[in-house]
């Protein structure tokens, strides 16, 4: 990990002439002398005799780093955070996983229950994803009904399941028209440090691979379902979609796996979901300018 020497983020040390020099800074986009240019990776954002604070002007602070092609936490622009996966930790769920992308933590629990198949598709079961962003994970969320971000994330996960055809819904059917498996996937975010969509997709995939469904037979005499808990089988996962999120800065820079601060400062975000064959399942780009189509090719 690269060391970066900076004033602490809680300091509010600001030179008294900051406003006027600052104006020139942001308008001109050029820094005065005194900036250490490319001297290895020990970098301090000093302009003249002023010290830039993370809390006072976060965007300028970030721009200093981006000019050197790195980020405050020491990563390159195209580098992901360390990813940790833990599968099968929840005993009461049929399948579970815990994914950590740096500090972003998402836990996924899948419960399989019986349900009637939908009338327009009698030989298919269904998957019901739900993303829960509680006040625990970030100060931005309040308790109560799901907010906009949670709903958008839930819809995104539902789209990924639908588009990538991660499981064949016919596999979930037990008896056509009468009984089918319904998989309730609950994705709970424990810590929101950006890039929630990637973490949720990953957690869902890991949990689905961990799901074990017991064998069910329909008793012809009583027409009841008999569940054999001793005999369990894994789900047939057909594809492995992987989501990658980018944050767009100043319409020119794409940075991978943004943290919450970076997402907030960025001019836009882009999420691409691809499966193993290189087919795109989802290109989610909610708004803001995008420089050119060629950037999409990257």
């Amino acid at each position, binding site marked *: 990990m690269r060391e970066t020497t900076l004033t602490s983020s809680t300091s509010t040390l600001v030179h008294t002439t900051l406003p006027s020099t600052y104006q020139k800074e942001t308008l001109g986009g050029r820094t005065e002398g005194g900036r250490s240019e490319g001297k290895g990776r020990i970098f301090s954002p000093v302009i003249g005799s002023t010290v830039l604070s993370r809390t006072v002007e976060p965007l300028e602070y970030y721009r200093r780093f981006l000019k050197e092609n790195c980020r405050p936490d020491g990563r390159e622009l195209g580098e992901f955070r360390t990813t940790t996966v833990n599968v099968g930790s929840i005993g009461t769920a049929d399948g579970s996983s815990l994914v950590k992308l740096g500090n972003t933590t998402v836990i996924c629990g899948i419960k399989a229950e019986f349900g009637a198949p939908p009338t327009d598709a009698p030989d298919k079961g269904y998957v019901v994803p739900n993303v829960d962003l509680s006040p625990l994970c970030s100060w931005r969320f309040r308790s109560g009904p799901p907010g906009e971000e949670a709903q958008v994330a839930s819809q995104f996960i539902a789209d990924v399941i639908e588009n*990538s055809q991660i499981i064949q819904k016919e596999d979930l059917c037990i008896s056509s028209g009468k009984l089918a498996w319904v998989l309730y996937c609950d994705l709970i975010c424990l810590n929101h440090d950006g890039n929630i969509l990637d973490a949720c997709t990953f957690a869902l995939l890991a949990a689905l691979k961990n799901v074990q469904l017991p064998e069910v037979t329909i008793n012809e005499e009583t027409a009841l379902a008999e569940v054999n808990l001793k005999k369990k089988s894994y789900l047939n996962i057909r594809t492995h979609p992987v989501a990658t999120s980018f944050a767009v800065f100043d319409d020119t820079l794409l940075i991978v796996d943004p943290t919450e601060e970076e997402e907030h400062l960025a001019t836009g975000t882009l999420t691409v979901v691809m499966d193993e064959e290189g087919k795109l399942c989802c290109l989610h780009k*909610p708004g803001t300018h995008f420089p050119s*189509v060629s950037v999409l090719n990257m």
Partner: protein
Amino acid sequence: MAFLDFRGGSGRVQIVSKRRATCGRHSWSPRVGACVQRTHLVRKRALLGGSNKPRLHVGSGAMEGAMQTESKIRADSRTEPGPRGPGCSLRHFACEQNLLSRPDGSASFLQGDTSVLAGVYGPAEVKISKEIFNKATLEVILRPKTGLPGVAEKSRERLIRNTCEAVVLGALHPRTSITVVLQVVSDAGSLLACCLNAACMALVDAGVPMRALFCGVTCALDSDGTLMLDPTAKQEKEARAVLTFALDSVERKLLMSTTKGLYSDAELQQCLAAAQTASTHVFRFYRESLQRRYSKS
């Protein structure tokens, strides 16, 4: 409704000049009062039924021969009324502005059989909890045709809101709110694109300052790779992938994209190129409709 957008800025000349046209007959001065009076007069006249200013503009939207891509183009062979011409073309579209009296701006956009009604309120008072100190708070509400709004509507609202945020000059109206309300009147395919178009027309009607206009275009790819623009509901259902793009009017930049289904990278580029060509026609239609509206006042 503030008229601060009159103070120069080349990017906004398009919108500004339209407003100026309405004030041409008065001795116009850059005060808030002057143009407001004129708009009220116009509205009053319209309400009293005295205005013969055309509000409805109908465009054919056909674009034969405009396709530059090498994609296979299938002629539309539906049996619905008003079939499209040979080649990959957009459906018949129509737009009506200023049809509601309460919102600051309203528009109804029709694409084939898909129809969306949009109303814009703003810049208006904003709740303290939602206010942003340096720009306007944009809110989008999308009401489906039947039933209560669900998670899918929320997701679409987010997409439309982010697109509007990219073009609306919110910095001119800090600590205010601009609300766009969309009501789906009928859904026959390409709904999100129609919503985007209606929202853009409504924002123009409300006089909200924008840096560019935007439009929505939907592409559908069927199982053998044929590209269809502006698909109907049936075509969308049978397609392998449906891609919706929002493009801006200045440089045809991609503002928003959302996709459904599986497709390859090359197909994405193809669809994007086709959408960019189609957007020229939509923007031409916008321009014609606005010209017609303001030329007879």
